Structures are given as structure tokens and as C-alpha cells.
């Protein structure tokens, strides 16, 4: 996959991956042997009919290929860019053990981009069924909410999405950076969902402006909770409130949603120092580190308490980050932040770790090596340890059951919660996970809600 050169792309917010040319797409599509077992379909959390869209692409039937994709996946432009295909569809590909799996993700991305650029060549969408007269409230316009809304609208139900922020998309807009997922593409996908008749109400902070019970009392027949996991986790070590120490949520929101990189055209800058330490090893940590580089940091570190093998981030993002010159400090854990006496961070005291026996997550447990403390000189830190659900919904909704992590309890298959007429899916149920698993949850819940509404 052609990419912007590392030294150049580390200074701009343009998309890193440049996409296949038509020749590359045709060549890759013909690698698929259309095997009868089709294990790739099972590997996809939304069960896209992968061999079928690849076949249509190979035969040059672009519009057909797009339709196959869109039948099961309302947001193909997004999945093709952010799915960890290496652990999903491509991991199951029959060709995995031979040369290499078919680059399914890249083909999906190619198709989605083609559709955006060739809208006029697409046949008109299938007409929607007659309105059922049933109303569904979807809380949150992130991947699970957008998917649930699209699926329900396609069945003829009246759907309103309530979004707390001033633009839709959730993590797609505020979390994943421009250079991985251009916001124009996200807006395009949102517009597609709206074209199905879905209403999007912005600035609607459910739990504050209205509660779930008030929404049900207004006459909605069902509610889907897709509010994600937006509460940042901090290290809770001394000095963590000094200036220059950010949660990854704040860092990414200011950068991507609020366009810090376009200051002063936008009034929401970031104070980026010369030496930035990002604490964490997931996709969010990679995103935060690569944003820091593009915002002008001279040196960016990823500080992770386990080793490279345990990094949870998508392989491609780790490779990209390393290529761009980010320094990875493995087996390192911060213990304290130091400041300059005027409230600004100047250093981070760390301790070296070593790996012991596996813990509950199956990964080897990091243990501090006594006496190995050292100080990293930094002037900015971004804490990217993970997020849990914002407690606002659970705190203001009677009868909802939650776990000690703050996640909402819901049936794994249907997304139904213990509260009457309320379903949930995505990060609010699983804790922080992937865009595609949130979409899968949105789909399954929509199917169950549709069944419920039909039987009303």
C-alpha cells in the first residue's frame, strides 16, 4: 500500500495511506481464489460478504461491489481504514499460510473511496419500506449508534440520534486522527445515514438535557445506548495535575475535533512542548504520539510498561509510529511527575519493569525492578491508559445495571439491557474496544429492536 514517506508525513495531517491504484486493486482482487469455505466472512465482526465484493471488483462491476459492501456495512469508508484486519478477516484467509492473505481491508477502502468519488455512477438506492410508525432513540452518534440507526431506518422505523457534541461521529471525529481517518470521510458516512431518514440532534447531552426516562416518556418505543467509553483514566501519581499533562482524550479532541493544528484559525490550541511522553501502548497512544510529532514536538516517546510483544495497538500503526521516528521506551512505568515550581511539568520519574507470570488478561504481568528509578526530561505528557464509560447515563437512568468498571450490562447476542425498552452496544458495554466491534453490536441490537417493535 503506497504511503506518504515517513519524514514528510510526520509533519502534516494528511492521510498517511495513499490507497490502491485501479491496477493494484485489480491485481490484489484476482489473488482471491474464491475458496468454497470462505472463512474470511466469519472473521468479520459484521459478516461482510467478502468473496462476493472481491469478485465483483475483479470483474470491474464497481457499483455491484459497493452494494455488496453496503448491504452489511453502513460505514465501509471507515472500516477499510481503521479495522485491525490482521486479526479479523485477513487472519482467517485461506492464503494466510501461503504467500500472504488477500489484502481485504485495502480492497474495501478502495471500493469505499471509489463510491465517494463516483456517486453519480451509482444506481439509486433501494427505496425504504413504508414507515412502521415506531420511534427509536439512539443515544450517541459514534460507530455503534450510526450503525444501529442505519439498520433501523432501513426497516422503516423513525430514528433520532441524540449526540452530545456539536458534530456527529463520536470517536470517529474526536479520537481517530485526520491522517488515519479524514473527517471528510466520516462526515460523508454520517450524511449517508441521514439520507436514510435518520434525524441527528446535536448538542443533546442525554443525562443532563434530558434523561433516558424522559425520552421514553416522550413516546419513543425503544432506546439504544451507544455512548461509548469517554471517561479518561489517569495514572493517579503525584504531580499529575501540572500544566502540560493531558489525558489522551483531551489531546486528541483538541487536535482532531477542535483542529489545534490549524490554530489560530481555530481557537482551541494545544501547548506542545519539545519533548513529549505518551504513556500507554494502544491505538490511542500511537495516535496521540503521531499527533504530537505533527504538532511540532522535537522528540516523542511512547512509554509502555510491558514489552513490544504485548503492545495492543494495531501493527500497522506501531510500524508507522516507529518509521516516523517515535522512540519506544518499553518496560518503563512512570511513578511521579516533576514540575518547575511554576506549575509546568519538567520531568517524569520512571522505574524499569520486568515481565512476570501472566495476569487475568493473559499478558505477562509487569513487575517493578527495585532501585532502577530514573528521570525522563519531558515538558509534555499524554496519559493514554484507556477509557471507561462516562457515568452520566448510568447515574441518571433508573433500573440500568452496571459493572464495577462502569460498563452497562447487556446481553451479548441481542444487546438487551435489564431495563425495559433499552438496549446497549459498543464501548459502553465492552469498555474501550474497536470501531468494528461497536458496529457489530449496533447491528445485532438493531435486529433485536426491530423484532421487538414488530411484535408490539
Amino acid at each position, binding site marked *: 500500500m503506497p504511503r506518504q514517506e515517513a519524514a514528510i508525513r510526520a509533519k502534516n495531517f494528511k492521510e498517511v495511506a495513499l490507497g490502491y491504484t485501479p491496477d493494484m486493486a485489480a491485481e490484489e482482487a484476482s489473488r482471491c481464489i474464491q475458496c468454497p469455505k470462505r472463512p474470511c466472512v466469519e472473521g468479520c465482526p459484521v459478516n461482510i460478504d467478502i468473496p462476493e465484493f472481491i469478485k465483483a471488483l475483479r470483474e470491474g462491476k464497481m457499483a455491484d461491489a459497493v452494494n455488496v459492501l453496503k448491504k452489511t456495512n453502513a460505514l465501509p469508508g471507515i472500516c477499510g481504514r481503521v479495522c485491525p484486519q490482521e486479526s479479523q478477516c485477513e487472519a482467517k484467509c485461506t492464503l494466510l499460510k501461503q504467500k500472504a492473505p488477500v489484502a481485504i481491508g485495502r480492497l474495501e477502502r478502495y471500493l469505499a473511496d471509489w463510491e465517494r468519488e463516483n456517486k453519480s455512477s451509482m444506481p439509486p438506492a433501494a427505496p425504504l419500506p413504508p414507515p412502521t410508525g415506531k420511534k427509536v432513540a439512539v443515544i450517541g452518534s459514534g460507530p455503534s449508534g450510526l450503525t444501529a440507526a442505519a439498520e433501523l431506518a432501513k426497516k422503516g422505523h423513525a430514528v433520532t440520534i441524540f449526540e*452530545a*457534541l*456539536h458534530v456527529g461521529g463520536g470517536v470517529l471525529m474526536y479520537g481517530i486522527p485526520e491522517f488515519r481517518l479524514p473527517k471528510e470521510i466520516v462526515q460523508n458516512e454520517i450524511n449517508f445515514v441521514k439520507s436514510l431518514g435518520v434525524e441527528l440532534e*446535536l*448538542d*443533546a*447531552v442525554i443525562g*443532563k*438535557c434530558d434523561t433516558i426516562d424522559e425520552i421514553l416518556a416522550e413516546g419513543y418505543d425503544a432506546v439504544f445506548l451507544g455512548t461509548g467509553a*469517554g*471517561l*479518561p483514566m*489517569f495514572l*493517579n501519581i503525584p504531580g*499529575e*495535575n*501540572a*500544566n502540560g499533562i*493531558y*489525558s489522551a*482524550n*483531551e489531546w486528541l*479532541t*483538541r487536535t482532531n475535533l*477542535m483542529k489545534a493544528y490549524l*490554530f*489560530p484559525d481555530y*481557537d*482551541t*490550541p494545544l*501547548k506542545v512542548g519539545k519533548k513529549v511522553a505518551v504513556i500507554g501502548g494502544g491505538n490511542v497512544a500511537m495516535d496521540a504520539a503521531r499527533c504530537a510529532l505533527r504538532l511540532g514536538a522535537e522528540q516523542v516517546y511512547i512509554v509502555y510498561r510491558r514489552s513490544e510483544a504485548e503492545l495492543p495497538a494495531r501493527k500497522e500503526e506501531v510500524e508507522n509510529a516507529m518509521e516516523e521516528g517515535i522512540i519506544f521506551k518499553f518496560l518503563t512505568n512512570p511513578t511521579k511527575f516533576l514540575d518547575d515550581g*511554576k*506549575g*509546568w511539568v519538567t520531568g517524569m520519574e520512571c522505574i524499569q519493569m520486568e515481565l512476570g507470570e501472566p495476569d487475568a488478561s493473559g499478558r505477562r504481568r509487569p513487575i517493578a525492578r527495585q532501585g532502577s528509578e530514573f528521570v525522563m526530561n519531558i515538558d509534555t505528557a499524554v496519559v493514554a491508559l484507556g477509557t471507561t464509560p*462516562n*457515568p*452520566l447515563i448510568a447515574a441518571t437512568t433508573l433500573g440500568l445495571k452496571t459493572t464495577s468498571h462502569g460498563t452497562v450490562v447487556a446481553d451479548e447476542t441481542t444487546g438487551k439491557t435489564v431495563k425495559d425498552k433499552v438496549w446497549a452496544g459498543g464501548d459502553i458495554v465492552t469498555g474501550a474496544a474497536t470501531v468494528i466491534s461497536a458496529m457489530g453490536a449496533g447491528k445485532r441490537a438493531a435486529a433485536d429492536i426491530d423484532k421487538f417493535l414488530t411484535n408490539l
Partner: protein
Amino acid sequence: MEVGKTTRELGLLKTGDSIMSLTGPLGLPTHIENYGTVICVAGGFAVAPVMPIARAMKQAGNKVISILGARNKELIFWEDELRSVSDKLIVTTDDGTYGRKGLVTEPLKEILQSGEKINLVVAIGPSVMMKFCARTTQPFGVKTIVSLNPVMVDGTGMCGCCRVVVGGQTKFACVDGPDFDAHQVDWDLLAARQRTYLEQEKQAMDNWQCRCGQHS
């Protein structure tokens, strides 16, 4: 009363104009009950949030003594509104151009020293004013509520930009506040965090003024 670039931009809007986004109410509401006698202190622009609080306190049966202070006469507003919901109103200006010359903490201290039983003080205004009101009431052991105004991004608890330390614990002013016990607030940390973007704020203002051809 326009200080920064954004309020000046807002000030240029006319009736009928619109802005892109508005949401609320966010945070936790001020706790209103019949405490007995409540002193409401408003520093400058903060007469805006103080007035409805004074009104609610009065409606709940409290005796309300209000103190309204600003740097000079031009910056005093809503004096009549605040007077109409208070049993007594004292107005101060730093430079003496209106009302009593001095800071709001002076009449506040006098009332506390007079022996009158005060059950609660609500003080809202610039951070340094709230800090000094807290210092003034502390020796008298009177419960004091302040409304903290750190820099905020989303206002719903997703980013932690608004973190303040109260009673040694980190809180998010946007969801746990904005009201907090004044005697527990780490005022130095709040002041430091409010200065984070001073340089960029000036840059934004200069940039905007140049583009609009406006110079104050």
C-alpha cells in the same frame, strides 16, 4: 464586558444572528435550601450567576445579604436586579467611582465580625477574588461555596482539562462542580492551570484584531 477574543466576537453579533452550538445545563446545580442567612458575593461579571442564586435563596426563605463589587463604575451592572432579590445590597468599586471604595472582602469581613449569624457564603468571581473571600471567611468557620472556572473543553467529563484539586482529591469541575467548598480548593493549582494558554490567547486576539482592522 468583553475581555478575550471570543467575547468580543460575540459582542459584535446583532439580534437575530446565530452561533453554531449551545448546550446545557451542565455540571451540578447550586444546592438551595433554607440555611438561615446567606451572603452572596459577586465579583464583576459574576453578578450574572450570582443573581439567580440570590433569588433562589430568597425564595427558599433565607435572609440574603448581597455584595456586588467591580473595579470601577462602568463595570457594575444588574445592580437593581440583585437589589430586588436581596434583603440588603452593598456595592463596592476598587477605585471608589461608585458605591463604597474598596474590595468586596471588606464589607464581607465587617458583616462576619458584627456578630450576625451567617450560615452560608456564596462567592463567585475571578479566581483570586474567590480565593480571598475564602481566606476572609475561614477564620469565622462559615461554610463558603465558590464556583470554579478552569479552562474546559467538552464540559461533560470526557477530557479532564478542567481538573481541580479539592480536599486533596482530583475533581472535574465540569461534572463534579462547578460549586465546591472554598476552604478545600487548591487555589494555586487552579491559577496555574488557568494560565496554560495565556500566550495563545494573546496571539488569537492580535491575529483577530489585525484581520478585522480593529485595535482597542
